[in-house]
């Protein structure tokens, strides 16, 4: 295919360097500097897709972020990306592009849809139909869903990685057009740390397509110089291809930098995209403005384009998207498009100007070229199928609300329209600033600043180039000053440009037709979602009055362009239908993303194995080497069980549990939280936090405690040891460690600042090896010769400092298995050494490493609870049969005490911890089973409790379970039932929660 519309090199393209790409499988050529859109237009591609609802043919209308139609699937396979706007895709060798909506087959009668079916689909039609018969809705929906979506998500994992930078700067400039560039230059010269970002591939904004002369130079040359100047500053970061997508509180701006997409989607150069998380002291918004299209009948036919886009394609890319241009405008500025088109050597059929008497300098220039200007006229309808063939032009009344003359048909294949400009108020709106209607510019200006920001240039409603320079420069200097740099005075002369005299524009939001809006051919407002002027009027007729209701009823602005093209027209049409002003009607809310932002980039590096930190103990590598299976407990990886060759989990756990009770086992308990507590008030403080008292705990002694929240419910538990006078060590659960630490600090710092006590987390400092079982002492004795381990001198609930395998250790004689146990704590850099020494010492006793699963079984055999498994935030110590741990007579009303006396806490029939013994001992009740007293009832059943922990106990030779049952403590011996999902019911007897060694004799191995 020949590039029929290629004029040669544009200001930013090089026609000597060709680039091959495919579009819907067809090979095409573009040139260096092209976007996909300019290359498609160069090749004469009219149709780029079909509309969402009515499947109407659509062509490219814009040249940037505002493009609603040219939505493409780029690339294939794992690297594919859906929904890129062709206007924002830089061409690269081998690019594959495909339109996202079913490509029309030749025989497909496109207009039929808009004719009749289209009329059956006014806004809100879903809500009015598909209701009967009710059961068919899911079928209807199935078909509705088939039509859903634009492009397709990849189905393979993303091969790319993404990156983030936390940036801090004094002045952030968003947009590198004339306003932004001058702002950045002034701020940089003042010495501020400056970041300037622009969404486009190169800096320059509108200057990239400008024919202006600046400081005596062609705009693009002047541009190259200032960009080079900026890059020369050490304190400036220039970020092209970088979109500020969201403006958040306290001057936090998210910027997405596309680093390699322009090289090819599979180009591997490190991170594909980078998210800059910018905290700026001051922000200058110089994001430009969007040209507003004119809304006339069938304004969606391919070949209807934005006037500024036509100029951009001609000047910047060297592409003329058609032959015979008809320009339709309400303002002087767009006349430039006629001049550009004429200079490109193509025909300007006519300029249709809605104003009665346009006389500005550009108008004069156009007339001088011999181009016909039809003042006081409007294009009321475009005609054509897949491409504009002609325009229907008619005389309008002065207000532009009525057709008052005959309709003439003017042949053309390109209609450029300009209804004026709308400042890009998006980012300022993100901050909560409400855009303000300003009739003098026929547009919404950014509202009052809510943050340290200002909008300059076209973004603030200033449209002259000189004005943009002036505003940009002074905003840059001012922002720098407010950030602490310079004195607000300008360092550079404002660039010299020619002033062009312009006449006021006309406000025209809906071009009248000879037929009423409801009967005229569709006049599209939002092209992506097929929202038309008649749809908006219909919604108003149906009683919807709020602009937000209109948005939601018609879907206006919901698309991937977020209404950049159509919203202002839509709001004005709404205002008119409601008979109120545009100011009263207001806008919908602009929110991030300014343009869509890649999920992966927002996720950054924190994906896959780095999704969350994995915390390891000092012995972790040993566990890995032994082939342990791991369990996630919070961020920790804990060995779950250590299967031997060919063992099932149950076999491994049985073996581990038996080993502990018959000889000795070893557990890595390093993950338990440990808090060092020092200070004269330490005992008092600890006593306030636990339900029992620590005032009399002597050095060398340990005590088990339960901590409640103020609501009286169990929050954490663990042992607390007195290390020395005024010095304690508190153990917490693995998962509760951070929460307990914050809890202690909260009370100490905010409620009792006078108590003298300090807390320090020592969780990571200590590596803990628990050896447990009747032979535990013998093992320890082999590697420890400075402790008297005899039962009398080192008693249960004592701790001692000694040397274990050469390392200075704290040894705690506490037990979670009911067996003789020593928890050996050594500084973690000796952790693995000591562990291996214990393994070696234990070899003769067949010492067995066990994991959390066996630990759970062993403690359940003893009826010890696990907070978070046997409790769920609604359990008191009494519920857990642990009244013994509550000291009600302490002087200070410990945390949670008062709540234990509330009526619900003392209610009978609370769920209480019990043991369950299945009638068939081989049967293990699934954890989480619900308990009923009467198995014969109908559903809904009256549930009386549930199973919290349940195991097969190899030591007992039968299954055991812990459960909480209503009134359970007085129901020992009763039979309860667990109805399972598979229809079976397991019967079990309520027994004591202590299954093994109820007298606690096994502790006392001599």
């Amino acid at each position, binding site marked *: 295919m020949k590039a029929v519309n290629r004029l040669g090199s544009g200001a930013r393209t090089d026609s000597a360097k060709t680039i091959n790409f495919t579009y819907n499988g067809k090979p095409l050529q573009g040139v260096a500097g092209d976007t996909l859109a300019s290359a498609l237009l160069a090749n004469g591609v009219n149709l780029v897709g079909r509309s969402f609802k009515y499947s109407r043919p659509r062509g490219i209308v814009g040249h940037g972020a505002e493009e609603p139609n040219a939505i493409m699937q780029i690339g294939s396979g794992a*690297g*594919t*990306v*859906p929904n890129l706007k062709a206007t924002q895709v830089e061409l690269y060798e081998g690019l594959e592009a495909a339109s996202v909506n079913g490509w029309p087959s030749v025989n497909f009668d496109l207009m039929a849809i808009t004719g009749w079916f289209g009329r*059956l689909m*006014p806004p809100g039609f*879903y*809500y*009015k*139909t598909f*209701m009967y018969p*009710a059961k068919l*809705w899911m079928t209807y929906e199935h078909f509705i*869903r088939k039509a*859903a*979506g*634009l492009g397709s*998500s*990849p*189905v393979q*994992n*993303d091969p790319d990685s993404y990156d983030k930078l936390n940036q801090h700067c004094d002045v952030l400039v968003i947009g590198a057009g004339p306003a932004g560039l001058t702002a950045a230059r002034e701020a940089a010269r003042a010495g501020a740390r400056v970041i300037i970002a622009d969404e486009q591939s190169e800096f320059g904004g509108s200057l990239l397509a400008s024919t202006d002369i600046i400081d005596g130079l062609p705009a693009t040359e002047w541009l190259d110089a200032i960009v080079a100047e900026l890059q020369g500053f050490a304190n400036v970061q220039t970020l092209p291809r970088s979109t500020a997508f969201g403006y*958040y509180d306290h001057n936090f701006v998210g910027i997405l930098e596309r680093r390699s997409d322009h090289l090819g989607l599979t180009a591997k150069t490190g991170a594909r995209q980078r998210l800059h*998380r910018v905290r700026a002291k001051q922000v200058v918004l110089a994001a430009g403005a969007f040209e507003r299209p004119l809304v006339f009948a069938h304004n969606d036919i391919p070949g209807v384009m934005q006037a500024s886009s036509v100029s951009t394609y001609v000047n910047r890319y060297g592409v003329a998207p058609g032959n015979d241009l008809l320009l339709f405008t309400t303002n002087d500025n767009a006349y430039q498009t006629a001049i550009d088109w004429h200079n490109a050597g193509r025909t300007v059929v006519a300029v249709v100007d809605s104003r009665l008497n346009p006389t500005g300098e550009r108008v004069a220039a156009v007339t001088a070229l011999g181009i016909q200007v039809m003042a006081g006229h409007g294009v009321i309808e475009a005609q054509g199928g897949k491409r504009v063939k002609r325009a229907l032009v008619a005389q309008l009344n002065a207000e532009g609300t009525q057709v008052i003359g005959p309709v003439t048909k003017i042949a053309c294949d390109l209609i450029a329209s300009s209804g004026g400009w709308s400042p890009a108020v998006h980012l300022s709106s993100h901050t*909560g600033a409400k855009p303000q209607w300003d009739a003098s510019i026929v547009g919404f200006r950014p509202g009052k600043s809510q943050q340290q920001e200002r909008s300059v240039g076209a973004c603030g409603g200033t449209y002259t180039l000189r004005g943009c320079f002036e505003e940009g420069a002074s905003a840059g200097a001012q922002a720098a000053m407010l950030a602490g740099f310079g004195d607000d005075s300008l360092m550079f002369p404002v660039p010299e440009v020619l002033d062009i005299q312009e006449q006021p524009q006309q406000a025209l939001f809906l071009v009248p037709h000879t037929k009423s809006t409801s*009967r005229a051919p569709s006049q599209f407002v939002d092209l992506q979602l097929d929202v038309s002027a008649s749809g908006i009027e219909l919604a108003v007729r*149906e*009683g*919807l009055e*709020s602009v937000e209701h209109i948005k939601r009823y018609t*879907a206006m602005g*919901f698309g991937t362009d*977020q209404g950049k093209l159509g919203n202002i027209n839509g709001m004005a049409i709404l205002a008119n239908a409601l008979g109120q002003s545009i100011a009263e009607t207001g806008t919908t809310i602009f*929110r*991030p*993303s300014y343009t*869509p932002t890649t*999920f992966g980039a*927002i996720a*950054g590096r924190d*994906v*896959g*194995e*780095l*999704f*969350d930190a994995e915390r390891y103990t000092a012995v972790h590598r040993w566990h890995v080497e032994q082939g342990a299976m791991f369990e*996630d407990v919070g961020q920790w990886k804990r060995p779950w069980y250590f299967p031997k060759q060919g063992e099932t989990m149950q076999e491994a756990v049985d073996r581990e549990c038996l080993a502990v009770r018959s000889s000795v086992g070893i557990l890595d308990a390093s993950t338990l939280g440990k808090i060092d507590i020092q200070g004269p008030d330490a005992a008092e403080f600890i006593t306030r936090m636990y339900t029992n008292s620590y005032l009399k705990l002597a050095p060398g002694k340990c005590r088990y405690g339960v901590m409640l929240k103020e609501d*009286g419910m169990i929050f954490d538990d663990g042992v607390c040891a007195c290390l020395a006078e005024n010095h304690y060590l508190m153990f917490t659960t693995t998962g509760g460690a951070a929460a307990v630490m914050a809890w202690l600090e909260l009370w100490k710092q905010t409620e009792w600042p006078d108590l003298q006590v300090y807390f320090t987390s020592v969780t990571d400092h200590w590596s803990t090896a628990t050896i447990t079982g009747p032979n535990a002492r013998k093992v320890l004795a082999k590697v420890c010769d400075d402790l008297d381990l005899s039962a009398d001198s080192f008693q249960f609930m004592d701790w001692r400092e000694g040397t274990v395998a050469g390392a200075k250790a704290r040894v705690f004689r506490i037990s979670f298995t009911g067996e003789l146990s020593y928890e050996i704590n050594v500084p973690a850099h000796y952790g693995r050494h000591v562990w291996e020494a214990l393994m070696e010492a234990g070899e003769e006793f067949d010492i067995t490493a066990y994991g959390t699963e066996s630990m759970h079984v062993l403690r359940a055999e003893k009826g010890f609870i696990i907070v978070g498994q046997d409790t769920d*935030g*609604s359990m008191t110590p009494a519920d857990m049969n642990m009244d013994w741990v509550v000291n009600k007579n302490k002087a200070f009303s410990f945390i949670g005490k008062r709540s234990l006396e*509330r009526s*619900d806490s003392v209610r009978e029939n609370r769920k209480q911890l019990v043991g369950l013994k299945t009638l068939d001992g081989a049967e293990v009740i699934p954890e*989480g*089973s*619900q308990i009923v007293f009467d198995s014969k009832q109908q*559903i*809904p059943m009256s*549930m009386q409790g549930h199973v919290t922990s349940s195991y097969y106990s190899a030591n007992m030779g039968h299954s055991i379970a812990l459960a909480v049952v209503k009134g359970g403590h007085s129901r020992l011996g009763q039979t309860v039932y667990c*109805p399972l*999902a598979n229809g079976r019911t397991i019967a079990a007897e309520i027994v004591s929660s202590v299954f093994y060694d109820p007298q606690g004799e096994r502790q006392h191995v001599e």
Partner: protein
Amino acid sequence: MKRYSGFSLFKNALSYHENWQKIWRSPKPKSDYDVIVVGGGGHGLATAYYLAKVHGITNVAVIEKGYLGGGNTARNTTIIRSNYLWDEAAQLYELSLKLWEGLSQELNYNVMFSQRGVLNLGHNLQDMRDIERRVNANRLNGIDGEVVTPERVKEIAPLINISRDCRYPILGASWQPRGGTARHDAVAWGYARGADALGVDLIQETEVTGIRRKNGAVVGVETTQGFIGARKVACVTAGNSGVVAAMAGLRLPVESRPLQALVSEPVKPCLDTVVMSNAVHGYISQSDKGDLVIGAGVDGYNGYGQRGSFHVIEHTLQAICELFPAFSRVRMNRQWGGVVDTCPDACPIISKTSVDGLYFNCGWGTGGFKATPGSGYVFADTVANDRPHPLAAAFNIDRFNTGALIDEHGAAGVAH
């Protein structure tokens, strides 16, 4: 009220849609009502509808400070399910689910309730215990649900990652087939249209600024349009409940927090169910338009800003990329926030108050959309009869004094 149907659509198309009736009137407020419902979200509108429909109380106004359904009703990720843990909550949400099942027909307005099923994923052993416990409770309460394996999860949501060697592998899930989503706006509009047709006045763009009392009893509300009298005032103002309660000198056990959500650009159907994960913290479904609707977390701090902190969005998308690595190249089109009224036990308050004639329905926090029909139903009954509906009794505000909380943090997840 003219009924909607395929036929009415056809007929109106013939006349270029020029003759549709108004969905609701925009009346001037009367001086006096039997009941004023403060708050025109889904719950408030449903309350008004059932007051009129079930209890014949039609001299009712709904007063809404913005546009109808513009609060959290407009901002939620529309997940509907009833698989709550405790009996009290499960029964309330199940009543709701049953009402959802006939709601489009009841209202003659298609709320697009789509029973595409809801998966709640488990990523560690305790998650799985909790899931077992909840599903068992649901079954015995007559609520559908089952525990499914990772392989079954993959069948239901083919793009999900069930590999065992990711950071938080999926160990299983609960699956409630009757759960799903609905079109949130349509719910508000359907109830509004229904209530309006029964005579309820819907007063928009009018803020209640005070609650006038006499001898300890309510006599009406001050509004930005002046005083409006009422015998009973029923407040259903979600995130603003604390502010409204303060007008009557009351405090509530609720805190208002920003909760965020986001949508991707529309993509072709690739996720036909709702997937939620508490542990990695994200939840996702795909709308009928094709956008992925993703719920993010609650911000750490109180706020009335309808916007939140960006790091919450970052975390959510990390979770989504963890669950669905293929979505990493999909793009975020829009994000927003709502102000949710969080209760200490993650359960609502549906209650009379210490002020005669003043009622509150709030505290739905991150999960009240699914309850809209049931909440309106039991609240209307409570207001009409001045005593708690049996299913609302447990949700009395007194529970914060007695301690009889209904801790649904597990089943409520952190947010949905």
